[in-house]
């Protein structure tokens, strides 16, 4: 019986109550070292302000309501772009994965577009949509479409054909075959795509918001740069790290919910 995936040569690690704190050890140490260096005057505060200065900036912007406003608009752009791009990627991935004629028709075109770096489209996107939210949402959607598409497509294609044959012999209808075998079988791969897509989602938004925007975290950082507010710039960068971590945790939660059977989930 498989209990926990651990490399045997490393021996058995007992599960300790402070296991949950270990991942925070490295970031915390870095933070303390940074604070000490800044306080000792070894780092110029114009280059990198102390963590306490960043915390002060966070407090200041929170009480003025500015931070929440930028955070909300950024999250909204990310979510809308993600839903459009992810939805299209999932749709084309499923259709092309299941139906050969659809794959013949569409896959090579999608692969061609996929290989264009989507950020290279920025000048064209600005010409099309101007510098409004549409442009940013379009870029996010374009960025997340392909990782979801590719991983859904290959997730479906990688399903053991023996399982599909078994389903046919056991009298499953095409609908049952899809919902009971093809969809659950491709989920681990779809979730890998989801994780990639979330990373690309933030990346695209940062770039899009720093180039042309009047609100959002990226705008907040660019605006602060003009006034030499290094603390706000650092705060914006830290916020992206936090948002990225949050998105990753959401995927992990989905994995526990949807693919509890998968060996990556440490069956017991």
């Amino acid at each position, binding site marked *: 019986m498989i209990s926990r995936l651990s490399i045997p040569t490393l021996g058995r690690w007992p599960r300790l109550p402070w296991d949950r704190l270990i991942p925070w050890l490295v970031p915390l140490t870095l933070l303390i070292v940074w604070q000490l260096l800044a306080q000792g005057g070894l780092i110029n505060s114009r280059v990198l302000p102390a963590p306490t200065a960043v915390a002060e900036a966070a407090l200041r912007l929170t009480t003025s309501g500015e931070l929440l406003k930028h955070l909300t608009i950024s999250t909204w752009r990310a979510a809308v772009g993600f839903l459009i791009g992810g939805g299209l990627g999932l749709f084309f991935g499923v259709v092309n994965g299941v139906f050969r004629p659809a794959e013949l028709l569409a896959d090579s075109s999608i692969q061609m577009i996929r290989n264009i770096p989507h950020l290279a489209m920025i000048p064209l996107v600005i010409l099309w949509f101007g510098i409004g939210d549409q442009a940013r949402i379009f870029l996010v959607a374009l960025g997340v479409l392909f990782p979801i598409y590719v991983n859904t497509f290959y997730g479906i294609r990688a399903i053991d054909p023996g399982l599909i044959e*078994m389903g046919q012999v056991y009298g499953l209808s095409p609908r049952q075959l899809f919902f009971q075998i093809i969809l659950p079988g491709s989920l681990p791969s779809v979730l890998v795509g989801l994780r990639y897509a979330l990373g690309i989602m933030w990346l695209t938004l940062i770039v899009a918001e720093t180039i042309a925007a009047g609100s959002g975290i990226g705008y907040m950082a660019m605006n602060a740069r003009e006034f030499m507010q290094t603390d706000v710039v650092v705060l914006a960068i830290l916020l992206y790290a936090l948002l990225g971590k949050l998105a990753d945790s959401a995927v992990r939660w989905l994995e526990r919910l949807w693919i509890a059977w998968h060996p990556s989930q440490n069956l017991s």
Partner: protein
Amino acid sequence: MSSTETFLAPVAAATGSHIRIHNLSKMFDQRPVLQNLNLEIGPGEFVAVVGKSGCGKSTLLRLLAGLETPCQGDIHLNGYPLRGINTLARVMFQDPRLLPWRNVLQNVALGLGQQGRSRSHWALQQVGLDHRARDWPTILSGGQKQRVALARALVTQPRLLLLDEPLGALDALTRLEMQHLIEQLWQEQRFTSLLVTHDVEEAVTLADRVLVIHQGTIDLDIPINLPRPRDLTQTELAVLKQRILQRILSR
């Protein structure tokens, strides 16, 4: 649900399918695999098919399951011609082909509607695995997985069981256990069985009749009228096994 609860057979036992194969031929890319094969299998009969690899024995099973379509000739089940997937039959493959995202019970209940649960418990009890109903298939041993696959095949009480080398990947001891289990369940439920195997010993211990297939036709068809359970030390069995083996090897 307590593990001591017993589940009764859901429906009264019916008889097995009657199979008639007439002039059956199958080609893959101009290469003949089966040629003008004629065969009749009575209801409830246990037939084993042996032969060298590539002789067409698996193709015969796949044609009976409806997974392949004949190029020529036809298959009749209980007097009706077979079209598409054979819904009377259940297949056990060499690999268990369990769905890893469903627990053992849900795997057995595949494609069943509302009464699926209690029927599946019954089928798992037949193979002695009802206590593992809630486990993921991934953590079962190879023999246990094949027992779950057997329960899944028998849960609908099929009239025809097609066994495509189902014990080929198991170790010798587990294989003996599985042979006893299949024989016992067949004696209780009287479905028609077709076992494709490369193991002549397995064929003579389990079957009423052993067919040797060579170059797409039936080369030898011998009945085995020995009492069950059979013991391989019996002289008659050893003689039969030797005769079949020599026939296969002489070709």
